[in-house]
């Protein structure tokens, strides 16, 4: 102590250095904040000193405090002072402080530009080093612009230490100042071949980062990187390069082909797990890019899956995690190969580590099939019971629902089972996902008509036992389920066995403790139930009891604090009282009450609203009325509270809108529709059956036999379904085998047998327990198909999407300050005498002065002509192909066709038919497809769009394709304005070998009553390495009358009116010897001739379609034995005759 006093005042300034500060903080644990605030005061004093050493010491302490979370932005200027010290010791401290504390909005940064430039050109490499390091942390767009040229010069510094730093900093500069990328890129590329491995790896790093964001601009570097990959032994660099290739392959499948071999070699040879993992990832990316149109590389997939299995089986948790992660990538394209490891993945569900369990759950999503769904969900349900943390349990719950509901409930064969799973999930404690379960219940009950009876019974039980769900405070989230239960019971009350009991359950006083929106639904649906009870027996004991109950219990809700509940309750109470009054006068009223709730709600597709195009001439942003003046609005404001706003309901499943209100609106809509000539009318009696295009789904709903016992409380019942399902499938299989045998006897010696009689049971063999028709979600009639998600406009990497192969323009130079030129030259650079960027030759990317010029400049050449490794298995079929007549060795590659062919077998109804083909190219025509004016403006409905797929079948490049058609009087190809009537249209793309692409052409038709045939030619240039030839392909475009028809849904009552109207001419046709099942026949008509099924009764169906010019075409199709008779009506007899001829032809072909 005495010593301290003796110390001089100057010495005392040094007395607290960083170590002392740290020690002091550690010694003042109790009053840390207080201690630090005194320290900060000291530091402020120190910063006022002139001595730079004192200042640096203060800044160093501040940096430490900044790390602890204290704000030190006030000292920014002092930091700059320390940075500009000439002593390295202080400069280092200053730059460290700056890199920790500065950010883009620090205003003193702009003062640093010249200081940093000076440091960058300092003769001491460590001065330059710290400046670069600091810059990497706080570079701003301004700094980047001003310093880009200096840093670029440093990329050619004599010392590798500076070179590698400069190269890495350039990436940050590019991000902030994208204009610098093109001028700097040639030099960056040079650095890929720098003699120093550190610089080389830095350059690889930067280009990889750039390429990952905008891969297409870096394709031309592929040969160079390929060379690096095969020569480098540094794993750090290898990983980066392989990652880069992973980003490039999706753009260039041929590159993937080339990569497979070296990558598989690496996979076999490397011992570094990180490298192995990266290789596997890239091979997966390659396989994904190849899976479209190339023969499958089953060996490579097998290798990947095998290696991943080893990773997953490893005791190292990290490898296990990554293995599962990579598996999920394979799953997307090759689900079969992953599915075989189901055992392993299920095993991972038992892992202690939550991260691993979550990854395994992700995989399960893709592994379910109709066959194993029940089994997997059963296992998950067990986990739900066992799981400790609620977050994991919630995750399980959402996964179960995800798995079951994926792709429109594709894998669910038994919806009773699914409903009972949902009911079981409601017993989960403390889950936040009540609303999720609720929306699933609603969705299933609404869309799967066959299940309603069962669902209603289950929901009634739930309502009855509502106290179990709400008893506990913890179970708040789950009571959302009651919302769904109440709504389902009310809406489908006709299925209720004991509506009285449910009504009672809904009106219990306990209900008043539920959240308001649920109470509201209760009250509303109690009214629906009441209507049902009333209908079942007017004047009966039940109905009077129900009435009394309503009158007795509803007042409780009338007093509710929730406005919604109150309003509904008082409304309904008055209604019930009124009904009572009428009944006392012996007025029959049940029919009228039930009419309040009549009609069915169809689900609306989630994006329906978004897809309605804005009608022409409607400006949504325009004011309808003049905007009110400012002063007025102030007075008006309070009134706005009472003005009733339109309730917005985007999700129909949560219909919180008053049911009456809805009924009213329905009425209004009907009126509107009645006066709208284009809307097909409906009558209240008929049920709306919404038909989808290929009416295959239109299969009569088979009644479920309710032999399944209803829920036994407390017993998990979904298990029973698993057993039942197993038995049922066994029975099915036995049945099928019998049939199969019969068939085989009949067909003895009849060529090849079908695949599935050999396999134990394939996916298709599993028939659903009961046919369910999933009601499709409604879409507006003229919905726009496009629905693309915009990319994030704020992504900094977007600005770096720059074409690097274009030669530099004169104005693309980095700003160089002329008065600094002398200093720039001071720094020892390799090419001092050459002005940076100024000369065009050095900066043109396409012509680097390296030995690899030819390779680099022509990627296609590199990809197509390099010898394919002979042991690569995919090369085999190519070699086996004989070289045909084609000129100069252009061998047609038959590979791409193979997958097409198999596909065609699986889906017999392809939209595409072969238009023309030769050894170079194949043209596939899609059934002409019509575009109508959005408004259905019949005068303009004369356009037909033809989609043609061009597929390059040879190994040469096809370019300059021109498509031309000889116009007829009736139909004309639409050509761009200004071109002559016989000019060809150029196809807007070129075709590399094996690639196919689609082009669309628009035709204008005068009359659509007759089919049309148009002659056309396609000319193109076949280019290979040493020659190019002009080729021509002739084709005929056939416009059938069916192609002028648009699939238009029609309701049966509107259909009936149409037929009665008498405007239609009649015609009929008979088809003999049709052996296909009736629904196939209908599907065929729907598909090929664009009809939709209006109604189907047994072996008789009515169908409807409309032409692009608005002709109605109605069909009545009947079948008996093998004869099908079609009676047809249309307002245009010629069109009808032609359509019937075409239908006849369709069936004569099969």
């Amino acid at each position: 102590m005495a010593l301290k006093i003796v110390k001089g005042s100057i010495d005392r300034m040094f007395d607290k250095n960083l170590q002392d500060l740290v020690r002091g903080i550690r010694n003042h644990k109790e009053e840390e904040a207080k201690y630090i605030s005194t320290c900060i005061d000291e530091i402020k004093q120190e910063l006022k000193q002139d001595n730079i050493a004192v200042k640096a010491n203060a800044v160093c302490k501040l940096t430490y405090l900044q790390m602890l979370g204290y704000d030190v932005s006030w000292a920014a200027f002092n930091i700059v002072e320390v940075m500009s010290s000439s002593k390295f010791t202080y400069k280092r401290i200053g730059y460290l402080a700056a890199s920790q504390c500065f950010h883009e909005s620090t205003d003193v940064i702009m003062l640093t530009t010249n200081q940093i430039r000076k440091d960058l050109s300092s003769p001491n490499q460590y001065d330059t080093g710290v400046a670069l390091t600091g810059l990497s942390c706080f570079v701003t767009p301004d700094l980047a612009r001003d310093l880009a040229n200096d840093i670029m010069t440093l990329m050619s510094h004599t010392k590798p230490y500076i070179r590698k730093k400069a190269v890495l900093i350039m990436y940050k500069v590019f991000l902030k100042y994208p204009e610098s990328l093109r001028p700097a890129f040639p030099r960056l590329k040079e650095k890929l071949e720098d003699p120093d491995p550190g610089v080389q790896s830095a350059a690889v790093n930067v280009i990889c980062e750039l390429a990952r964001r905008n891969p297409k601009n870096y394709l031309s570097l592929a040969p160079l990187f390929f060379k690096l990959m095969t020569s480098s032994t540094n794993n750090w660099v290898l990983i980066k390069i392989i990652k880069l290739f992973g980003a490039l392959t999706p753009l260039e499948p041929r590159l993937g082909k080339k990569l497979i071999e070296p990558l598989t070699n690496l996979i076999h040879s490397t011992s570094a797990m990180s490298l192995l993992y990266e290789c596997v990832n890239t091979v997966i990316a390659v396989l994904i890019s190849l899976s479209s149109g190339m023969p499958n590389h089953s060996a490579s997939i097998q290798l990947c899956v095998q290696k991943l299995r080893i990773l997953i089986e490893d005791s190292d948790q990290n490898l296990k995690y990554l293995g599962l992660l990579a598996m999920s990538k394979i799953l997307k394209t090759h689900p079969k190969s992953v599915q075989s490891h189901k055992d392993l993945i299920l095993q991972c569900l038992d892992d202690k580590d939550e991260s691993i369990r979550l990854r395994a759950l992700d995989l399960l999503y893709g592994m379910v099939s109709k066959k194993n769904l029940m089994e997997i969900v059963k296992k998950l349900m067990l986990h739900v019971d066992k799981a400790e943390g609620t977050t994991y349990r919630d995750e399980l719950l959402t996964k179960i629902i995800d798995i079951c509901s994926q792709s429109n409930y594709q894998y669910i064969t038994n919806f009773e089972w699914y409903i009972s799973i949902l009911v079981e999930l409601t017993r989960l404690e403390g889950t936040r996902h009540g609303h999720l379960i609720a929306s699933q219940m609603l969705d299933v009950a609404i869309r799967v008509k066959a299940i309603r009876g069962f669902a209603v019974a289950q929901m009634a039980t739930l309502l009855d036992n509502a106290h179990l769900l709400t008893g506990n405070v913890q179970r708040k989230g789950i009571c959302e389920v009651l919302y769904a239960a109440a709504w389902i019971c009310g809406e489908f009350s006709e299925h209720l066995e004991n509506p009285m009991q449910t009504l009672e359950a809904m009106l219990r006083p306990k209900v008043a403790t539920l959240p308001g929106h649920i109470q509201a639904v209760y009250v509303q649906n109690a009214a629906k139930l009441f209507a049902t009870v009333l209908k079942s027996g007017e004047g009966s004991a039940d109905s009077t009891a129900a009435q009394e109950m309503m009158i007795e219990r509803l007042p409780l809700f009338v007093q509710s604090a929730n406005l919604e509940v109150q309003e509904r309750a008082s409304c309904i109470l008055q209604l019930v009282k009124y009904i009572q009054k009428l009944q006392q006068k012996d007025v029959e009223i049940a029919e009228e009450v039930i009419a309040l709730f009549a009609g069915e709600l169809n689900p609306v597709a989630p994006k329906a609203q978004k897809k309605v195009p804005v009608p022409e001439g409607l400006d949504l942003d325009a004011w309808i009325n003049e905007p009110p003046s400012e002063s007025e609005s102030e007075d008006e404001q309070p009134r706005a509270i009472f003005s009733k706003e339109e309730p917005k309901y985007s999700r129909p499943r949560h219909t919180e809108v008053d049911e009456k209100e809805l009924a009213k609106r329905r009425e209004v809509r009907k009126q509107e529709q009645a006066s709208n000539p284009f809307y097909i009318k409906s009558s209240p009696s008929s049920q709306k059956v919404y038909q989808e295009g290929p009416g295959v789904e239109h299969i009569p709903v088979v009644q479920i036999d309710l032999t399944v016992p209803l829920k036994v409380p407390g017993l998990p019942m979904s298990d029973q379904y698993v057993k039942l399902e197993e038995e049922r499938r066994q029975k099915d299989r036995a049945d099928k085998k019998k049939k199969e045998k019969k068939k085989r006897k009949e067909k003895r010696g009849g060529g090849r047998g079908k695949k599935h009689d050999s396999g134990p049971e394939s996916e298709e063999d599993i028939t659903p327990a009961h046919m369910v028709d999933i009601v499709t979600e409604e879409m507006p009639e003229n919905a726009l198909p496009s629905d693309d998600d915009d990319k994030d406009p704020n992504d900094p990497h977007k600005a770096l999407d720059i074409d690097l192969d274009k030669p530099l323009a004169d104005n693309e130079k980095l700003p160089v300050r002329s008065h600094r030129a002398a200093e720039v030259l001071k720094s020892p650079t390799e090419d001092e005498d050459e002005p940076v960027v100024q000369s065009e030759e050095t900066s043109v990317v396409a012509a680097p002065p390296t030995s690899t010029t030819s390779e680099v400049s022509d990627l296609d050449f590199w990809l197509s002509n390099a010898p394919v490794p002979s042991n690569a298995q995919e090369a085999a079929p190519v070699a086996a192909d004989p070289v045909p007549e084609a000129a100069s060795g252009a061998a047609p590659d038959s590979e791409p066709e193979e997958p097409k062919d198999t596909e065609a077998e699986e889906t017999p109804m392809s939209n595409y038919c072969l238009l023309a083909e030769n050894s170079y190219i194949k043209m596939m025509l899609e059934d002409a497809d019509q575009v109508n004016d959005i408004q259905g403006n019949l005068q303009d409905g004369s356009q037909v769009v033809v989609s043609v797929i061009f597929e390059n079948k040879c190994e040469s490049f096809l370019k300059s394709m021109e498509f031309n058609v000889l116009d007829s009087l009736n139909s004309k190809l639409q050509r761009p304005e200004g071109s002559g009537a016989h000019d060809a249209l150029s196809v807007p793309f070129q075709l590399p070998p094996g690639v196919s692409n689609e082009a669309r052409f628009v035709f204008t038709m005068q009359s659509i009553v007759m089919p049309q045939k148009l002659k056309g030619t396609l000319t193109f240039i076949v280019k290979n390495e040493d020659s190019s030839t002009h080729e021509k392909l002739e084709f005929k475009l056939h416009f059938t009358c069916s192609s002028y028809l648009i699939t238009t849904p029609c309701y049966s009552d509107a259909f009936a009116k149409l037929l009665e109207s008498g405007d239609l001419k009649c015609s009929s046709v008979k088809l003999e010897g049709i052996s296909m099942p009736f629904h196939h026949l209908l599907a065929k008509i729907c598909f090929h001739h664009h009809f939709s099924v209006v109604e189907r009764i047994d072996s008789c169906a009515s169908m409807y379609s409309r032409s692009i010019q608005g002709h109605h075409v109605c069909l009545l199709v009947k079948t008996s034995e093998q004869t099908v008779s079609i009676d047809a009506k249309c307002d245009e007899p010629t069109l009808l005759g032609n359509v019937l001829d075409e239908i006849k032809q369709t069936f004569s072909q099969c």
Partner: protein
Amino acid sequence: MRFLLLFSRQGKLRLQKWFTPVSDREKKKVIRDMMLLVLARQPRSCNFLHWRDLKIVYKRYASLYFCSGLENNDNELLALEVLHRYVELLDKYFGNVCELDLIFNFEKAYYILDEFLIGGEVLETSKVAVSDSMEEADTLQETMEEYMSKPTY
């Protein structure tokens, strides 16, 4: 790599390095979330986590957690490798490094990191090269410190 954090088992931050510009508020939030997530992990769990759109790779060395945030495409094993290499470098520099070394010489820990990583990318993969440049810079600094410690007034 987006950021690197070092913190103790008690939840005390020892080092933070951000490779992309992040606002101070966001930094604090990330640091808090990281500590909550990482410190809650069971022993013998895997070293990877998903957090927002980032992959978190962490590893515990003695009483210190090294925690880094990666972008979606980055290689987790490589990141572990980076963390390990950083620990090796610290070890080499301090000679059997411990938490106190980092507390009292926090600026050195930053300098070493700066020689190893720049802007979240590996600058130098060679251990020898990093420690060489560290040493050389230090001698430069130490001589100056000695020089400065002589009273000039």
